């Protein structure tokens, strides 16, 4: 009988190995910035650090996928936004990415309704200047 399986942790299937660690003391400080949070066991920030590592692997790889699906070697904030919008696990990040403009193309569902800010998000100063490549908004738009 096959074992009940919640699936592998992020990065395991791809053989991703992260050697660098987050500063545990800093994580504890961030945790305790919340007034409601009181004492924290010594091992707890270590556990949270690991969770954060897995979270990062997940988000970074998904953002990279979004970039690749748009034939870009540079992962922009727009790609990160697309990654967030495309995954339920990242729903809590919707507010944070809403200030970013959407990336054209890809297969994602660019939620244009969230852009209530008037500024076109981070003015992409490097846009167009990078390697003189002109490809940009002119990307064929797939979403329908």
């Amino acid at each position, binding site marked *: 009988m096959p074992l009940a399986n*919640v*699936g*592998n*942790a*992020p*990065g395991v299937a*791809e*053989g*991703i*190995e*992260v050697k*660098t660690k*987050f*500063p545990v003391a*800093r*994580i504890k*400080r*961030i*945790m305790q*910035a*919340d007034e*409601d*949070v*009181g*004492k924290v*066991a*010594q*091992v*707890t920030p*270590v*556990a*949270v650090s*690991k*969770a*954060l*590592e*897995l*979270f*990062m*692997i997940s988000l970074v*790889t998904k*953002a*990279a996928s979004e*970039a*690749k699906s748009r034939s870009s*070697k*540079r*992962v*922009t904030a727009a790609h*990160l936004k697309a990654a*967030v919008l495309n995954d339920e*696990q*990242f729903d*809590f*990040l919707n507010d*944070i*990415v809403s*200030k970013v403009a959407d990336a054209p193309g890809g297969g994602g569902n660019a939620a244009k309704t969230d852009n209530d800010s008037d500024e076109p998000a*981070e003015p992409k100063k*490097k846009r167009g200047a990078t390697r003189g490549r002109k490809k940009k908004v002119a990307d064929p738009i797939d979403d329908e």
Partner: protein
Amino acid sequence: MSDREFGGSNDDLSLPKATVQKIISEILANDSGIAFARESRDLLIECCVEFITLISSEANEIADKEAKKTIACEHVTTALEQLGYPDYIPEILKVAQEHKVQQATREKKQNKFNTANMDEDELTRLQAELFRSATEKFSNQPAE
């Protein structure tokens, strides 16, 4: 480049950029050519801090419900499950276990020479014992 905290937090609590950049590189190590733009890295850091806050808040509530004043590792794993990250749990338990083992070793080493409450006789005896065992180890070593 945004240096402002969009999260509206009072503290400038964030994660060190260099560390985060290093981790991004490790995650994308197999994906040669793909790189994160600076703006995306900064946005990613915001997401990370938000993640920590999310987990802490949830774990804190869970601890509260159990009438516990200290957030333990178990509260974190339960929080992860409830928030939709069950696949992270096995890795975290592994890390927590390693930490416990390290702690035990650390404490053992500290207690081994806990001379704070010893009187002179005990100290002298301990010293003699240490000399004896050191001599023994020395004489048992193969000549080089």
